[in-house]
């Protein structure tokens, strides 16, 4: 038996563009053509004004640390505690859950509002996850 693996996302027709994006090294968001709202998670209409005229664009990949926990127990399969589960506020507005890499998983190192940038971590041939690391100054 292999080691228990991290939960792996399974794309749907509405989210496929996002997961295609991470594989291509892009963080993709959606923008409403009617009201200019930028939103996440993916869906083929604007959750602000209900317009179906929405487009996908490549986000800057920059954001800041909005909040987090450092999980000790119980640990999710595929994770070695302690590990931070973070919510990142993207420069474009939406927030997303992620992990913070290249950074000690401690309260001292993980300062709220610290600047972050996206990094991509390949899980397998189909799925690449968007992770974040401290932005280079």
């Amino acid at each position, binding site marked *: 038996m292999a080691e228990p693996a991290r939960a792996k996302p*399974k794309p749907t027709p509405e989210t496929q563009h996002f997961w295609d994006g991470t594989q291509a090294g892009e963080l993709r968001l959606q923008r409403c053509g009617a009201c200019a709202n930028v939103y996440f*998670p993916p869906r083929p209409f604007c959750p602000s004004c209900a317009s179906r005229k929405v487009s996908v664009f490549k986000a800057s990949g920059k954001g800041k640390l909005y909040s987090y926990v450092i999980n000790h127990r119980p640990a999710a399969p595929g994770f070695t505690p302690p590990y931070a589960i973070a919510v990142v506020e993207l420069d474009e507005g939406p927030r997303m*859950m992620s992990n913070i890499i290249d950074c000690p998983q401690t309260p001292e190192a993980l300062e*709220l509002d610290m600047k972050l940038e996206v990094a991509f971590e390949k899980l397998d041939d189909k799925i690449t996850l968007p992770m974040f690391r401290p932005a280079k100054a």
Partner: protein
Amino acid sequence: MRRNQVAVVGAAETTELGVIPNMSQIQLHADAALNAIADAGLKLSDIDGIATAVETPQQIAHYLGITPTWVDGTSVGGCSFMLHVRHAAAAIEAGLCKTVLITHAESGKSMIGKLPRSIPADSLQGQFEAPFGVYGPPSMFPIPVLRYMKTYGITHEQIAMVAVVQREWAAKNPRATMKDPITIADVLNSRMIAYPFRLLQCCLVTDGGGALILTSADRAKDFPRKPVYILGTGESVETPMVSQMETFNSSRAFKVAGPTAFKEAGITHKDVDHLMIYDAFAHLPLYGLGDLGFMPHEETGRFIADGNTRPGGKLPLNTNGGGLSYMHSGMYGMYALQESVRQMRGIAPAQVKDAKISVCHGVGGMFAASGTIIFTNEK
């Protein structure tokens, strides 16, 4: 909804609380239901409306032998029972049924006959939260709290005091799971679960259940127990994804449910004698005090740390000991409702003297859902 048109006439918990290795989850439902029916002096055949969560209403109705004319399977997490009370009150007023049974039970500790919970990999949570290591409520529910603390200047010691004060209430309650006094240092030195929260800031894991029986206020006066009237109600939902809340500085669902109930009840915060705020984790009473409008969020930590919610304080809060010290089978809302009913009947182990209005506020599915019920013992 009109005030005081519907009343609780039966209320009971399971015969045992805590670790109950000799009963399956469905039997815990039945145990609580039979106790509530006895409390109301009714027969099962008198019940014509049924509501429950997680377990389906058809499962519970059939197990108990009930043929309902009104059914509610609203299942939005631990506050589902607050929503059931609200929906049942509306249904009774509308004439859809006369006597409603609401049941909750979970074999949360012993896990006997408990339905599995899983997150499908192609759900939004499965795609955009589960891959990042969330694993059960302790890893999810506290995610907003560091932001809340920074925004409002709340300290770790102030949040630790939530657990300390609730243990003081639990010490007065023979049925509470944890009764020994604790200090701020005990809380802040207990085992780390998910920083910033430690063991004593996380709810218990127990077995148990509870049930309520509601009927119209004009019938309620003929029952053996003092009626507890429904004065105001509110409900809302926000998102099942904690990462997608509008802000971590408050709960949108709280801010809809709470004020809706206060408006319906026609009361102000000064009128509240007794308060329950569902405390799956120690930050929830702070969010509740702020979002229900008792005070600005900046003051919630200090208000609790100063002892205002402890026995003898001006706003008695979570007087059974709460999910942190009384019991928590997974969906605690029913136990908060039971304590409000006991306080309004005047029979609570830690009875608040002359209490006439009780506010009972629930949360469900992390911050996904909320329900608020305001009770009174005066018509």
